[in-house]
């Protein structure tokens, strides 16, 4: 749980209030100037009225250079960030030809497959020659190749379910599957901090949506009991079915989901469990099989498992795994399967090769090394940050670590200072997080070496002192070790 110190909350509110006041003042001036000048809309309503894009125009544009930074190399542990200049106070940014080599703490590259890999890339190029870059058709028309069938089998085996279905994009998987499974008359209970794709899919389904407090199984139980007893709104008919949607690792918190308790509650009340493992598949667990392996939950208890390949496998696309009948039904009705172009063959080959490396089927132990490396890296980095006095969220073993910033002025300060010292971090503010709880999010990768991490820690500590985000007292360093060594000599 995040507990904001009172002084920080007060100053944050004050900062936002000041920014809001200035923004309104500028809007007022803009209204006067526009009143004098003739409008060029000629009877059409403007695309954004009044306060709809106030946040974007007056707050976000001031710090636009901290987001959307282009790169000109693969998103590996070190990459080249292209510098941008602006001549009109950040309203438009132009690319320059200068690049700076920075340490990458922002890309989702958990197992280090982002750049060209010695096992995967030759196979990917071979597949490109054989099947070409795209199939140009949907899966039910000419888009199912032998490669797609192999991919689905490999994914199903890796995840631990009888069958799987693969689509070309993770976002679309959620948006197109939930409407097929639940329709009007069903109930979706989702965690309060679920990802936008799940929210969109739930809204598009037409079912009733209820939210339970983030990662609190007791509140989930209360909500379930209440809803089953009450029935559908207004008619009080019993619900057709209830689906509980949770994520494996929450991308903005770095926390693992309390899966064993949630699964046992759902079994008791006969609700279906939908697990979204976008960030956890391949990154946690002894052999990389995700949250179920890490927390000891049997995969047969989770009805629908969904995940994406963008994070740990260095590719693109999403999958759904479940029982054979479920997958057959989805293949027959799901729009993502019937109407959308199938996943690109080289991307499919990358996933198959990456899974082979993780399982050690390529003949080397690189997979096991990578998994051990990321676990070690995450735990080391997190403990060091906590020792320095930063407020870091997330559980042990999770490669995502958000560092709390709170104040809106610290967001660009942290981001720009780190970039000056060649460390690239990601800062997140409203609306992806609540208004007061802005943070900097670090994603550790298996490709980071110990020296990289030490350098990163140095830079973050220096910048943290400059910006003032060490909200907790730092642990004092232990000086007795030196004397111990001298004695031995």
């Amino acid at each position: 749980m995040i507990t904001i110190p009172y002084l920080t909350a007060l100053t944050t509110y004050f900062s936002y209030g000041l920014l809001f006041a200035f923004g309104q003042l500028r809007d007022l001036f803009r209204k006067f100037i526009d009143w004098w000048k003739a409008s060029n809309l000629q009877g059409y309503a403007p695309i954004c009225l009044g306060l709809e894009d106030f946040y974007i125009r007056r707050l976000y544009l001031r710090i636009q250079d901290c987001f959307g930074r282009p790169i000109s190399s693969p998103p590996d542990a070190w990459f080249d960030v292209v510098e941008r200049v602006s001549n009109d106070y950040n309203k438009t940014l132009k690319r320059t030809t200068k690049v700076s080599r920075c340490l990458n703490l922002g890309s989702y590259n958990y197992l280090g497959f982002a750049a060209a890999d010695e096992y995967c890339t030759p196979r990917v190029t071979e597949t490109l020659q054989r099947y070409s870059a795209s199939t140009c058709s949907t899966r039910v028309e000419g888009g199912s190749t032998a490669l797609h069938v192999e991919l689905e089998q490999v994914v199903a085996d890796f995840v631990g379910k009888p069958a799987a279905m693969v689509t070309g994009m993770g976002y679309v998987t959620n948006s197109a599957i939930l409407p097929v499974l639940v329709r009007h008359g069903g109930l979706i209970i989702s965690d309060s901090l679920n990802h936008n794709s799940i929210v969109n899919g739930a809204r598009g389904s037409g079912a009733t949506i209820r939210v339970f407090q983030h990662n609190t199984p007791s509140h989930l139980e209360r909500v379930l009991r209440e809803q089953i007893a009450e029935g559908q709104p207004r008619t009080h008919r019993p619900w057709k079915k209830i689906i509980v949607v949770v994520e494996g690792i929450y991308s903005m918190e770095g926390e693992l989901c309390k899966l064993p308790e949630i699964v046992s509650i759902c079994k008791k009340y006969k609700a279906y469990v939908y697990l979204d493992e976008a960030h956890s598949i391949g990154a946690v667990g002894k052999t990389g099989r995700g949250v179920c392996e890490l927390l000891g939950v049997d995969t047969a208890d989770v009805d629908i498992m969904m995940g994406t390949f963008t994070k740990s496998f260095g590719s693109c696309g999403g999958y759904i795994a479940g029982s054979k009948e479920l997958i057959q039904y989805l293949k027959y009705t799901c729009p993502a399967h019937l109407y959308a172009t199938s996943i690109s063959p080289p991307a499919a080959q990358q996933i198959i090769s990456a899974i082979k490396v993780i399982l050690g089927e390529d003949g080397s132990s690189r997979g096991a090394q990578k998994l051990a490396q990321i676990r070690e890296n995450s735990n080391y980095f997190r403990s060091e940050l906590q020792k320095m006095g930063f407020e870091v969220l997330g559980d042990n073993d999770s490669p995502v670590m958000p560092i709390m910033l709170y104040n809106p002025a610290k967001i660009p300060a942290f981001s720009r200072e780190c970039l000056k010292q060649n460390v690239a971090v990601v800062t997140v503010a409203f609306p992806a997080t609540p208004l007061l709880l802005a943070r900097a999010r670090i994603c550790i990768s298996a490709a980071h070496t110990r020296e990289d991490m030490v350098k990163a820690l140095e830079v973050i500590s220096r910048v943290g002192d400059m910006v003032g985000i060490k909200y907790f007292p730092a642990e004092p360093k232990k000086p007795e070790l030196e004397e111990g060594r001298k004695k031995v000599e």
Partner: protein
Amino acid sequence: MNSLKNASDWLTFAYDAPFARAVVFGVPIGGHLFVEGLLLVVILFLLSQKSYKPPKRPLTNKEIDELCDEWTPESLIPPITEEMEKEAPILESAARPHTIINGKEVVNFASANYLGLMGHEKLLESCTSALEKYGVGSCGPRGFYGTIDVHLDCEARIAKFLGTPDSILYSYGLSTMFSAIPAFCKKGDLVIVDEGVHWGIQNGLYLSRSTIVYFKHNNMESLKNTLEKVTQDNKRAKKLRRYIVVEAVYQNSGQLAPLDEIIRLKEKYRFRVFLDESNSFGVLGKSGRGLSEHYKVPIDKVDIVTAAMGHALASEGGFCTGSNRVVDHQRLSSSGYVFSASLPPYLASAAITAIDVIEANPKLLVKLRDNIKALCTGLSGIQGLEIASDMLSPIVFLVLKKSTGSLKSDLQLLQDIADQVLKEHSVFVVPSRRSTLDKCNLPVGIRLFVSAAHTESDLQKAYESLKSVAASVFTGQN
């Protein structure tokens, strides 16, 4: 009698009693005022009572437990029927005009590879160099170091090709429309849409929660009447955003939208136009710039143009283009752009090379047009089926002349025809499939995607085999 007289005497006496005529503050108080005063007190007393509400008795824990035990959910999926178990045919090589299914070489009419760019050496070369330089995935959304310079180059190239100020890349064709629409259409806005649009657009409209009005498929009269009606009904049109959503070449029927008519109507009634050019980009127009070049309408009259790149450009993903305001707005409010990983860089470089090839070889477009014409003339006179698509559309859509009555049996019949054609004549065609979520009511049919790489003999094989199979199936029926 006596008692009555006594009572009335007593009453008169009481009425005339001195206190009945007391004077308070100069106001004579009569006896009737006393009764009225009592009445007022009684009224006030009744008003001050709480209205009767049946007592609330919340369910006890035991009752909730019983209800929870009683409740049985439906199963997650309905029981599997026979047609659900059918699998699509599996290709064993690239989906080019000649491909291999089950070890046999077949002529492929099921891939939307309109200009035959799949497997072109220039594309493969640029993809290979991109793969070696950038790896496969981009590992992040566009806002968080997922913007690679190839993406920015691709956006600039598309904008230059079409002649618009800017464009924005999406990582998947289907998500382009259903992310772009909710970014512009909010609750309360008015959207007029053709009833034959594909699922991506329908879903985007549903998510946007605006008022949706359908008009008859590709019928300009119906569009005009609808526009007339809604402008009459909504007088406070100043703050209301109004849109017309159409596709250039409809996926569900192969018809072309008459853009010049639509632009004329839009300017008259002050609507904005959303145009989906997935199947017309790289196909229509002298140099492949799409529907607006075909009808000689300047591109800036169409407000928002989207297209999927998985058709003529032989790549994947989608783009949206328009004025600067339109594109910049999407960079922050379009959920499929902000919350999702960006397009893999090798596909973006494939798209750039594909556009270069199209610009350098306008002859491909002429070849495609000739192929479509040859196929349509070859298929005229086929028994039991008729061509429902336009002469210029690269999707040749064959519908049943006489429907069997239900969607399922239509699909079954068409599937049988397609299977027979594949098995006996080695020509791969597919019937159009409909999801249960799709609200479109247009008839289903067999789709043939014509490519510029098909040869004369391929086309001949296609229409001859279809004719013979249709003849056998339909004479069997009749």
